[in-house]
């Protein structure tokens, strides 16, 4: 089993399903792909992976979610795990939130839905190269 993971967070199951399959197909078995439907669940998954000695490399997160929003989620994650590359994938632009994520979560990129597979994969690849 690989010990490098990519985490996708989105409250819409239809997005998570198609997104993960897309990434898996393009990036291959080198990585484990995990999903979460809320920011809270996202924290849980990260903890579990860390306990299993798996490195979380990249998080692709939606912004508008019930409970904690994407920018706050990524900022909190960045505080605890500054090494993780953060990407926002969102259907709605909140300029303030994106700015905050850039400043406090070292946001690597923000992509808008509907996204192009190419753009997403490129973004992740450049993110991975940073590590």
């Amino acid at each position, binding site marked *: 089993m690989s010990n490098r993971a990519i985490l996708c967070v989105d409250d*819409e*199951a*239809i997005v998570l399903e*198609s997104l993960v*399959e897309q990434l898996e197909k393009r990036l291959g078995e080198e990585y484990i792909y995990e999903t*979460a439907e809320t920011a809270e669940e996202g924290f849980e998954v990260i903890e579990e992976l860390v306990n299993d000695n798996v490195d979380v490399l990249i998080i692709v997160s939606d912004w508008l979610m019930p409970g904690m929003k994407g920018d706050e989620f990524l900022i909190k994650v960045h505080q605890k795990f500054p090494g993780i590359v953060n990407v926002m994938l969102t*259907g709605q632009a909140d300029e303030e939130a994106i700015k905050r994520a850039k400043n406090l979560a070292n946001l690597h990129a923000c992509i808008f839905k*509907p996204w192009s*597979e190419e753009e997403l994969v490129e973004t992740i690849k450049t993110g991975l190269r940073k590590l």
Partner: protein
Amino acid sequence: MTNNQIKTPKGNILVVDDTPENLYLLITILSEQGYEVHSANSGSQALSAVRSNSPDLILLDITMPGMDGYETCQCLKANEQTRDIPIIFISALNETFGKIKAFSVGGVDYITKPFQAKEVLVRVVTHINLRNVQKQLEAKNVQLQQEIVERKRAEEALQKTLTELRSTQFQLIQAEKLAALGQLIAGIAHEINTPLGAIRASIDNILASYKDMIASLPQLAQSIFTQENRLKLFTSLLEKASATKINLTSKEKRTLKRQLRQKLSNEHIEGASTLADTLTYMKMGENFEDLLPWLKDKEAVSIVKTARNFVSIQNNSSNITLAVDKASKVVFALRKFAHHDISGEKAELDLTDSIETVLTLYYNQIKQGTEVVKQYQTLPLVWCYTDEIHQVWTNIIHNALQAMDYKGKLTLKTVYSQDQVIISFTDTGCGIPDDIKERIFEPFFTTKERGEGSGLGLDIVKKIIDKHQGKIEVETEVGKGTTFRFFLNIK
């Protein structure tokens, strides 16, 4: 006679008589009393004298050469400018016939000669007073007419202003509607972009899987379909995958994957983690026990992967269906909401449905942290202006969400009782303080920052409910929340 006083003449009198002595007598009597007196010795002279100098009173002899008194009087009465001047006939004629004629041609009085000076004066005073009163009345009348004209002008100006105000109000209401719609649209764009994203990705996945399927056909033909066990594994996987209808949450999937991985490891099956992953994807769940023996085959991983492509097409297709449903729902709600009642007539409306329409459009804002509780009774259809009722729910829900800062509980209750429909919206927001409570329906009254709200929202709500002959009740407690209750009659 006082030298230092310049007296204003008590009146202007014209005396007409062809006999000079009579003229002189009258002139003397009258000027002694302070009247300004002019004279004429014939009818025609009288007419020209009147033209140059409009008297307040005319003393008119009857028997004169040329035009007699009656004729002169008739001339004066025929002329608009002189007809109001009172005429007193003075004559030696004492017959009733003459007097009647004098009054019938328009004279106001008749003095017979020889006359007493006092009598003349007394009558002159009376008629001059009457004339003055008449003049005053005329002046007053002119003044009143002028005032009426001015008032009419002012009224027209006010009417014009009122029309302008009405038009401005209408524009403001339209602007308010557009602003509210604009805010909704931002949220709705997200609600549509999300399914679009899922659809696009799903299609990419389908095409990729399809490509892989084609590429794997030789392997399928040669090594899988030729071996009964492998074929069995392959077809079982596909059957099980298409049989499963349940969708698991990501949490449940994670737990399942772990369990599968554990089980497969225990059975010493190679590629346990990849298999666990793929089997979870194919929604094998608890049903895979019977596949265990076949999974020990050395080609198992490859077979499972190939089967996965087939299942992927199925999974992504149903994903697309779900996404399309979601997007359709939002668009449908938007269409219902923005539907313009061109006819301007009432229509039968399912009020519960109308609330749900608005809720759908606000789903985006609601899911940020608001719990929605619905206590719906079955309601009859109600005759309403559909467009406007939607506007009411929109404004109320919008306010409720803002009051709660998008985190809290929104309770919707509908009740049908005694020919009335009662719909209430309760939020757990900041509440409305007593000193503001009376003012919330005032136009342009708002507690929001500049630019955040026009202050017309509740004014519009009230106007619409009034238009439906309905009633609004507000219950509120600072720190606890607010309830807006609407009463509508079944009509």
